[in-house]
C-alpha cells in the first residue's frame, strides 16, 4: 500500500486504502488506493474491465469489498451498506440506467425526496417542499412535460436525464455518475455536461466514469486512471493524460 500522487490531500472527499474485490477468485480490484478530492470534478478512466464500475459499486454498498478501508470525509469504513449511502453524503447513477420503470417520472423523483423513516412515511402524503424540489429538478433536466409518463416508456436519452435528475434531487456532497455520456446524441451530451457543471457550481463533488477522452479533458479537474483492477495514476487532467504510460495503457497508441 503506497500512497501515490494524492492531490489536495488535506481536502479529501473519498479515500480508498488497499481496497480489494474478487469475483470467483479473479481480482476485479486489487489493492486500490487513491483519493477523490472534495473539490471539483473527478473522472475515473480506464479500459473496459479495469474495475471502474466495480469501484463505484463498492463505494455505494451495492457490492461488498473483500479487503481494505474506505474513508469518507473523516469516517473509515470496512463495510458499506447501500442504504447508508446518502448518509455518507454520496449518491450515484448506474451504467445500465436503473429507473423504477413501472412508476411515473414524477414518482421516480418523489421516492428520492420523501421521509426515510418507516412509520412516519406511512402517514406522509406528498409535501409541498418535496413537490417543489421535484418540479425544480424535472424542469432543470427538461423532463417536466414527461412527468406523467411511465419511466419505462422513455427514450434512452430521457432515461439518462431522469436518472441524473433523480440523483440530483438528493442533497448530498458527492455525485458519482457511471458513464453519464454513453450512447447520447450530441445535443443530449451538451445537456448532460451542463447538468454536471451545475452540480459542481453548487460546490458539490462530481465523480464520473467516461470513455470519451474529449469530455474528460473538457470537464474534469482531476483524473484517476485504473488499469486491469489496479490503480495506475491520479492527478490533474492535462498532467496525467500526457504521460506516456497512460497513452500506452489507455489510448493504445
Amino acid at each position, binding site marked *: 500500500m503506497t500512497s501515490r500522487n494524492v492531490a489536495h490531500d488535506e481536502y479529501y472527499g473519498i479515500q480508498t486504502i488497499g481496497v480489494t474485490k474478487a469475483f470467483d477468485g479473479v481480482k476485479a480490484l486489487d489493492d486500490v488506493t487513491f483519493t477523490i478530492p472534495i473539490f471539483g470534478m473527478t473522472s475515473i478512466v480506464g479500459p473496459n474491465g479495469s474495475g471502474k464500475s466495480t469501484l463505484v459499486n463498492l463505494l*455505494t454498498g451495492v457490492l461488498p469489498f473483500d479487503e481494505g478501508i474506505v474513508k469518507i470525509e473523516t469516517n473509515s469504513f470496512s463495510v458499506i451498506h447501500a442504504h447508508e449511502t446518502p448518509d455518507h453524503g454520496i449518491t450515484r447513477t448506474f451504467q445500465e440506467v436503473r429507473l423504477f420503470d413501472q412508476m411515473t417520472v414524477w*414518482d421516480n423523483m418523489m*421516492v428520492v425526496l420523501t421521509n426515510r423513516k418507516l412509520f412516519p*412515511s*406511512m402517514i406522509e*402524503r*406528498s409535501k409541498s417542499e418535496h413537490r417543489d424540489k421535484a418540479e425544480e429538478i424535472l424542469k432543470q433536466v427538461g423532463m417536466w412535460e414527461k412527468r406523467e409518463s411511465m419511466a419505462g416508456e422513455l427514450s434512452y436519452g430521457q432515461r439518462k436525464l431522469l436518472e441524473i435528475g433523480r440523483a440530483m434531487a438528493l442533497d448530498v456532497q458527492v455525485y458519482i455518475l457511471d458513464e453519464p455520456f454513453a450512447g447520447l446524441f450530441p445535443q443530449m451530451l451538451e445537456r448532460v455536461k451542463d447538468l454536471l457543471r451545475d452540480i459542481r457550481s453548487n460546490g458539490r463533488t462530481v465523480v464520473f466514469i467516461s470513455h470519451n477522452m474529449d469530455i474528460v479533458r473538457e470537464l474534469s479537474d482531476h483524473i484517476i486512471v485504473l488499469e486491469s483492477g489496479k490503480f495506475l495514476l491520479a492527478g490533474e487532467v492535462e498532467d496525467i493524460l500526457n504521460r506516456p504510460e497512460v497513452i500506452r495503457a489507455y489510448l493504445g497508441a
Partner: protein
Amino acid sequence: MNGNATTASPSLFERGMLMLREKGDLELYANVFVIGWAVIFTLWQGVGFAVTLGTVFCIWAILSVSLNLVVGYTGLLSVGHIGFFGIGAYGMAILTSDTSYELLRTESIPQFGLPFFAALPICVLAAGVAAVVVGVVFNRFRDDIYVLVSFGFAIIAFNVFLSWRALTRGAYGIPDVQRPQIGSWVADGEIEFLALCVVFLLIVVGISWFLVSSSFGRVLKAIREDEQVAQVFGYQTTYYKLAIWVISAMMAGLAGGLLGSFTTFVDPNSFILLESMLLVSIVILGGLASIRGSLLGALAFVLLEEGMRFITYLPSEFIGQVRQVVLGVMLVLLMLFRPQGLAGRYKL
C-alpha cells in the same frame, strides 16, 4: 377518390386485440359484466343467496386486497398467504368453540370460550406474530426462490393444521365456532353477519388505500421495481418489506377469523395450497397493484364458485375441477393478452 378501398379497416380480430391491450375499455366491460352477473344472480336466486354471496365475497375480498399489497405493490410473489388465513380461522375456532360435549372426546382441545369480539383481535395478532417470524426468514430471499419458499410455508401451515391435533383436532375439524355477539344480541342472522363483514372490508380497503397512497406505498413500488436502487437512495428495504408483509398477514388473519365464525366449522381442507394458488390467481386476474382490481377479481371468483352450482347438468363432483379449469384458462388468456390483469397497470 376511393380512399377507403386502399386503407383496409382493421379486422374484428385486430380491433379485439387492440381493445384488450388498451386500459379502460376492458376494465369497464369486466366491471359491468361481473356486477351485472351478480345482480342477475340475486334476482334469480333471491336475497338470501345474495347475502351469502356477499359475505363470502367480503372475506375473499379482504384476502385478495391484503395479498395485493404484498404481490402487486411490493412485488413479492407469495403463494403462502393461505397460511395466515388459516391461522385466523383456527384462532377463532380454538378461542371460541366449545367442543366439550362432542362425542369425539378423544380429540378434545383446550376450551377458552372467548366471545367473538375478544377472539378476533387475537386472531389478527396471531397472524401478525407468525408473519414477523416468517417474514424475517423470507426477507433473505427474492424472486423465484421467494415463490418456492412461500410455497413451502403454505405446505407447512397446512400440515400444522392437520397434525397438531391437540390444538386443531386434525382432520376432524372444529365445530360450533361462535357467531359474533354483543351482550344478548347475537349476529346469527346472515344479514347482520354480512353487515359486519362489509364494515371490516371497508376498514381493510381504507387502510390499504391509505398505505399505498402514502410515501410508504411509493417506496413499496420502488422496491418492486428495483430494490437495490431503493437501498442506494437510503431506504432500508427489509423493514419496508417486513412491515407490509405483517400488515397484509394481519388482514388475512382477520379474514380467517370471519370465515371461521361464518361457517362455524373449521377444518384443514379450507387451507390447502390450491386455495392459495386460486387466491394468487384472483389478485393477478383482477390486476396487480390495484385495490379495485382485487375487489373485482374476488367478486368474479365468488360468482364463478357459487354460480357453478346452478349448472344442473354438471355432475357435482366435477364442479370443483371445472371451476379451476375456468380460472386456469382465464389466467392463461389474460397473461397472453393483458399481463397487467383486468384493472391493473403493472406486470409481474
